[in-house]
């Protein structure tokens, strides 16, 4: 295990060292590349003047707010469609007509309706997060052990309690898998919206660094965005394993 993780580090380290040496040897002057040492310095600089932390806060706030809204909507519809086959079949065409719209295509609509800022970004993130949650939670509710539903019926649980006490706990591991997927999407969409148009957060920061011809700062932002994406993913995978263990794996194939 340890030998393998050491081997995994060989390639990135070799690339970094080779790049540093090459950049030093050729006295690299470029608008798009910078040696790793300067990237690290730029990253420290951005931390020191707090600019990257503010940007991170803005991006994560938009991403999580959108994630929360999108997950809630997706979950509500997913559970409703999972419980009622009739509703699911009736809504099929509507859902299939809206779902393929690429989230980023809503950007201009959100822009004229809400203007620049958090709100339009949150709306777009929420739209993108609805679908994975809706589809996976629908599948999760459908695959609930039928006997649990029979128990609910035998106990004459009212439907609110049936959802709360039987359906959500039974489907929770797979719903969490959907949440994990959506969280990744939320970050991606938030950064994309910022890069495309919205003047806040990490995406705007990296665009600004590019326009200011600061390749070191631009690549520092890129590295930092990568670190955040990776950390978010690791955090959610760990949480999933802690909370649900193997129970969640059944949903991964869906």
């Amino acid at each position, binding site marked *: 295990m340890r030998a*393998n*993780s050491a*081997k*995994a580090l*060989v*390639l*990135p380290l070799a690339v970094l060292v080779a790049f540093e040496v090459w950049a030093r040897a050729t006295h690299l002057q470029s*608008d*798009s590349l910078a040696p790793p040492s300067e990237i690290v310095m730029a990253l420290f600089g951005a931390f020191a003047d707090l600019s990257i932390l503010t940007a991170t806060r803005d991006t994560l706030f938009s991403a999580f707010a959108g994630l929360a809204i999108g997950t809630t909507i997706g979950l509500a519809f997913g559970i409703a469609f999972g419980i009622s086959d009739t509703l699911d*079949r*009736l*809504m*099929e*065409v*509507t859902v*299939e*007509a*809206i779902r*393929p*719209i*690429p*989230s*980023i*295509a*809503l*950007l*201009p*609509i959100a*822009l*004229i*309706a809400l203007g620049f800022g958090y709100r339009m970004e949150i709306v777009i993130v929420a739209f993108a997060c609805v679908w994975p949650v809706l589809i996976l939670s629908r599948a999760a509710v459908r695959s609930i052990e039928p006997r649990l539903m029979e128990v609910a019926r035998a106990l004459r649980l009212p439907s609110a309690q049936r959802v709360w006490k039987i359906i959500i706990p039974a489907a929770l591991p797979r719903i969490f898998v959907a949440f994990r997927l959506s969280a*990744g999407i939320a*970050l*991606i969409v938030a*950064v*994309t919206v910022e*890069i*495309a*148009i919205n003047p806040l957060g*990490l*995406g705007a920061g*990296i*665009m600004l*660094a*590019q326009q200011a011809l600061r*390749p070191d700062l*631009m*690549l520092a*932002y*890129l590295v930092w*965005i*990568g670190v955040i*994406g*990776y950390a*978010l*993913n690791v955090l959610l995978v760990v949480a999933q394993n802690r909370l649900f263990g193997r129970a969640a794996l059944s949903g991964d194939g869906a």
Partner: protein
Amino acid sequence: MNRAALLWRVASFAVAAGFVALWQLIASLKLVSPVFLPGPDRAWAALVRGFSSGDLWSKLAGTLEHMAYGWLAASIAGIAIGAIIGSSRRMRTYVAPSLEFLRPLPVSAIIPVAIAMLGLTQAMALFVIAFGAIWPIMLATIHGFAAVEPRLYEVARSLQMSRLAVIFKIALPSASPDILAGMRLSLTVALILSVVCEILAGLDGLGHWVLLSARAFRSADLFAGVILLGLTGYVTSVAMSLAEHRLLAWQAARR
């Protein structure tokens, strides 16, 4: 399709039509300002007008072109690189972890770097689209190669097949469901990145069209563009499912 399923379909279309009628009602009563929300009638008129004047055709063609070139380049490169990495245990231990580390990176973050290198050009868009679309394909190929039934490799060894023959006769066919699933995922990524690049670089395409319409507050044209983008997403994913079904027919038959 049997009768009941057909009836459900019809009912489902009726519900969708109901929502469109509701949308029309909201727009006609001006519950939402028509600056933001055109009715379906105006969106439809804008679609017809755009197509009859040829504007929308060329924008649609532009987006499809970006998407297709980027996606095809990503597919070829992704399968090739994935095959090289996936078919060697050594490459898998050395390279695959770095790829896993890069995977959660929001690919759009590469756009500024691409702009700095290539400028606001078509080449930049193709690079970004291909770079974004390559990940699902490459990782699916590596995974598919790693998951090949080990006995098949043993057979290959006892038949003394060359490495190329092993890749083409054993690994690729048995990894094809994974690879096709990856290609389907990338299709969505390619569409999204096409739109983003068109918005940023002002390249001819639907992304640019919707942005310009929004800037000029021509909401009917804007909705026409968004509807077309949705249709593009839908049609390409249906086409991909059909192709998947066709290409994997031998597998379904075997099961």
